[in-house]
Each structure stands twice: as C-alpha cells, then as structure tokens.
C-alpha cells in the first residue's frame, strides 16, 4: 500500500519538478480525453504542445503571446505572494489599453518620440487606477478584493464596448465598432526590421528581471512575502500590511495596464470589441505555473503561449475546437495544484508501523 508521508521540510526538487509533472499529466489526460471524444488525441497533443516549439516560424508568435502574459503574471504574483487576490487583471488590462488609446486618439495628428512613452504611462495609470478601487475598499472597509476586482472586469469590458461603438468609433470605419488605427509613432516598433516581435517582448523580460531583484533582494520584496505568509509576524516586524496591499494592487494593475497598452499599440494597432482575449485570466495560470517567481513566470508564460499557438495549429490540423485550448489550460492548473502536494508530502510504501524510520 502507498501512503502519503509528510516531509520534514518542503522539497526543493519537487518545487521545480511538480510543474513539469503537471504539464506531463495534462498532455496525457488531454490525449485520453480528446481521443475518447473522437479526435486523434496524440496528434492533438503534439500539435498543441510540441509543434510550436519545433517550428522556428512560430517562435516570434510565441514571444508576442508570452509578453503580455509575463507582464500581467508578474503583477499578479506579487499580489498572490502578499495574499492579495487580484483576479481582475483582465479589466485592468482593458483599462490600460483604453487609457493609452485615449492618448493615442488625442495625439493622432502629431508625431514625436514622446507619444509612445506617454501612451505607456497612460496605460500604467489606467490599469493602476482600475486596481485602486479594490485596494481602497480592501484597506478601508475590508471588502474582498476578489469580488470587487472581478466585478470591475465586467464593467471595464462594457466600457470598452461603449467606447468603440460610440464616442471612439472610427468615422471612416464603415460603421465597424472599432477605433482608428494607430499612427506609426503610436505603434510599438519591432525589435528587428520585418519581425513580428515588438519592443514589448524584451521589455517584458527586463521587467521580469527587475521584479526578481525587488522580490528577492530588497526589504520591499521581503515585506510582500512576509505579509502574505504570516500577517501577524509582519506586523510584529514593523511592516504595514495596508501599504503592501496598495503596492500589490497598484503594481498588478499598472503592469496589466501596460500589457494592455502594448497589446493595443502592438498586435492590434487599435481597439475593437475582440480586444479582451482573456490574458488577464490566463496569467493566473502562468503565475502559479511559475511558482509566483519571476523566472518561473517567464517559463510559465512560454508554456501557455505554446498552448495558444498550438491551439491554433490544432484547429487547422486536427479540427480541434478553439475552446479546447481553454480546457488544456484549466487542466494544467488543476494538475499543478494537485501535484503541489508533492512539495510537502511524499509517497511511500506503507512500512510495518513500528519499524518505520523517520
């Protein structure tokens, strides 16, 4: 008989191994499930998880999809570490894009190097402002940030619909609900001539490095970690949980807002009702897959980007519905949470009781 035994200390090895085990289990389960409902399971899983990695022409797309996930997940991870459950990143992402687009529409006839930084700043402020309300309600009135941040996501999306169907609708757009296309000085430059990869991708990596440094080497990062792990100890050590809540939500909102602006000024080049693609929710999976650590998040974002790109491939090769990608992502999160148990426990053969060695 197998039984769970509690480890005396959490296993470092399992901390890094269990996400890989979870990915493996997700692939296996996906193969069986999609096989059972009449698809070619092996080909579907290969298309989703392997093909994007071995076909170099997909790599640029991977980077473009990973960048917003990295940025949003970095902010979310800071919050999750501090026990601040900002799950409204999607709304902050949308509001960042809206604020940045506002600047773009104001400066549409102008040129200059300063326009894009101004849009980025507006994106950060827009996202942060959308996270500020949950922060205020949490700190002042102990209203759960889980519910408020999520409710505000629905509000943000409706606000986007309102703008693109109403005041911001492009007059020359054949009545399509969308804004004007951004001008050249409002569009993120590519890192190389003719490349799909825009400036946001290296910036996301840079932000991950900065986040890693802050979280592991500074007193501010320590404050976030200790407030999340042991609030009473944090107070005893002179840390202010309210300030950490504010910082976590503003950082999360700001990063999500910046990601939204990059997406608007990059791949989209305008705002449309199709703009919210759910990166704000997928980033939750990325944050957990990356163990809430910045280097892990870069890895996790790549894995999720692979499932996005692979999901598109599987649609054309195995005729898998687009919703299958979402299923794979959810399965991945389930397995991730399940294999987490391996960090604290180990499986062992049930020995004869009295003889059990520690």
């Amino acid at each position, binding site marked *: 008989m197998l039984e769970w035994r509690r480890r005396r200390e959490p296993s470092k090895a399992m901390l890094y191994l269990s996400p890989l085990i979870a990915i493996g289990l997700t692939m296996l389960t996906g193969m069986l499930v999609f096989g059972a409902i009449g698809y070619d399971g092996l080909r579907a899983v290969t298309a989703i998880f392997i093909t994007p990695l071995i076909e170099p022409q997909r790599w640029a797309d991977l980077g473009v999809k990973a960048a917003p996930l990295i940025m949003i997940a970095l902010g979310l991870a800071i919050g*999750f570490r501090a026990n601040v*459950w900002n*799950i409204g990143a999607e709304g902050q992402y949308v509001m960042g894009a809206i604020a940045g687009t506002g600047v773009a529409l104001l400066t549409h006839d102008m040129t200059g190097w300063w326009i894009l930084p101004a849009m980025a700043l507006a994106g950060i402020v827009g996202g942060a402002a959308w996270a500020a*309300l949950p922060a205020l*309600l949490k700190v002042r*009135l*102990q*209203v*759960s940030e*889980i*519910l*408020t941040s*999520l*409710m*505000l996501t*629905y*509000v943000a999306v*409706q*606000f986007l*619909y*309102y703008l693109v*169907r*109403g005041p911001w609708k492009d007059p020359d757009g054949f009545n399509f609900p969308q804004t004007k296309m951004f001008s050249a000085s409002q569009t993120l430059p590519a890192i190389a001539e003719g490349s799909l990869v825009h400036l946001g991708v290296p910036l996301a990596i840079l932000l991950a490095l900065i986040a890693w440094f802050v979280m592991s080497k500074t007193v501010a990062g320590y404050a976030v970690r200790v407030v999340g792990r042991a609030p009473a100890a944090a107070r005893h050590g002179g840390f202010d949980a309210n300030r950490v809540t504010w910082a976590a939500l503003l950082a999360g909102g700001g990063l999500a807002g910046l990601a939204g602006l990059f997406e608007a000024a990059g791949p989209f080049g305008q705002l449309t009702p199709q703009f919210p693609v759910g990166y704000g*929710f997928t980033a*939750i*999976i990325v944050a*957990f897959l990356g163990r809430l650590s910045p280097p892990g998040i870069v890895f996790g974002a790549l894995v999720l980007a692979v499932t996005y790109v692979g999901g598109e491939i599987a649609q054309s090769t195995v005729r898998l*519905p687009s*919703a*299958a*990608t*979402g*299923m*794979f*992502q*959810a*399965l991945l*999160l*389930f397995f991730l*949470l*399940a294999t*987490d*148990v391996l960090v*604290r426990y180990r499986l062992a053969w049930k020995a004869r009781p009295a003889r059990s060695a520690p």
Partner: protein
Amino acid sequence: MTAAILVSIFMTLAAAATPILLAALGELVTEKAGVLNLGVEGMMLCGAVAGFAVAYSTGSVPLGLLAATLAGVAAAMIFALLTLGLGSNQVATGLALTIFGIGASSLIGAGFVGRTITRLGPLFPADYAAHPWLRLVFGHDAIVYLSLALVLAVSLFLRKTKAGLILRAVGENADSAHAIGYRVLAIRTAATAFGGALAGLGGAYFSLALTPMWADRLTAGRGWIALALVVFAAWKPGRLLAGAYLFGAVATFELQAKAAGWSFIAPEVLAMTPYLATIVVLTMMSLGGRTGGRDAPACLGKPFPAS
C-alpha cells in the same frame, strides 16, 4: 392592465433571482462548513452546458436539470479532491474551477451554439394562473418553487437539526470538531457537493428556463455575484432570499430599460449595473459595520488539517 404589467415584471424578477438564489444557497451551505469555493461560476457553467446537452438530445428538460445537478456535483468533487484531499489553496482552486468551467462549457457547447429547446414551463396548468394576481402565485416554473422551498429547508436544517449544528461546528472550529470525533473532511465534502448541486441547477436555469438557447459563457458572472450575495446575506438563508430578489430587481430594471429603449443610457452602461450594484452593496455592508469578520464562519477558507 397595470396589474398585468406589474405581475409580469415580478415574474421576470423572480426568474432573474432564482438561479442566483440557488447558487448562493448552495455556496452558503458550503461556506458554513468552512469551505470557500470560488468556483461557483465554473460549476454553474458545467451545469448549464450539461443540462442543455441532455435536454437537447433527449428532449426532456427534467432530465436536463438532473444532469445539470450531477454535473455541478462532479465539478464540486474536483474541487473537493484538490482542496480537501490534497490540501491545495482554496482560493486558487476555486479560480481554477471557474477557468475549467468556462473551458469545458465552451468546448462541449461548441456544437450547440444557436440551437434551441422548449423551455421549462410553468408548474401548474395555465387555468390556475388565468388571473394576473393568481399568476403571481401559480405562474412560476418548478425551479422557482423549489428554490423557495430549499431556502426554508436550509434555514431549518442549519438552525434546528443536529446535522446542521455539526455542519456549523465544522466551519466554526475544525480542530475542535475533529477532536470530538467528527469527520471534518467527509462533512466538508458533503457540503461542497451540495453547493455544487445547487450551482449546477442554477446554471441550468439559464440554459433551460431563462434563455432556452445555448450561448457561450451565458452565466455572465452571475456565479461571482452569488458569492457576493452570501457575504451580503451574512450567511443567513433568509437574507439571502431578500438579496437574490433585490438582485433580480436590478436585472429586471436592466431588461425593462433596454426594452423601453431608453436612449439616454447607453445599453453598455445598463449592462454594467449588476456588477456595479454588487460593488456598491458590498461597500455598504462594510460601511454599515457588518464586515464579513463577525458573521463569517471562523474557519472559512482555512485548510484542515492546518498545513
């Protein structure tokens, strides 16, 4: 004539309130046992799609409702396995369940988009509800009556029965309950299953009664509103009933305003109202001094055994 309009407005209100009432009532029982399952939205979607798929393929709405209930339980059991069996974080697992519900319902529902079924009709024959006022009493479908009966049943169960006392005890202090000899995890699993069943049923109410047509993510965040409603109700079934019907009123207002073609409010702004109203209500609850702290079960969301 005005009576007929008022009655019809109330009928819409009751219909809008019912799925949220069901889901929130299930979550209330789950939370009373100390389990915070944030996956209500996901369980509702599982129920909605399972109910629609079964009702569409068998032509039987009752079978669809049964399937929805079971699907909700199945989804809740994934949650129970992870949080209660493997000790995973309840908040994170609830989010995962919602993401799963969105993905699964979208995948299964892909083949049903735009298909319609005959919706769930009133429970009593039409001649019982010939008069508008009688319609108020006899004109609802079976689930509306069921939801009201369940509010009463849950209220009595929690306050008057030994089993209800034990359930509350487990949510109040899991360690003590364990020390006395109650099976904390089994009780919590049962409470989670009940929450899943009602969430599944509530989800199916969308696809089988409100809009007898499949559309992606048709619960539109109502599961989250149900969670807020439990806080609003201070974990009391009676207040939950009031809150759900209050929410039904907000939703009915949105529908009526749209139908009346009010041009001075954009439809998008109207669509925001339920979510904004939820935030406002949560805020007012706190301003009124009723922070979750005192009413919430003391062990809500805490793992057992403590890790």
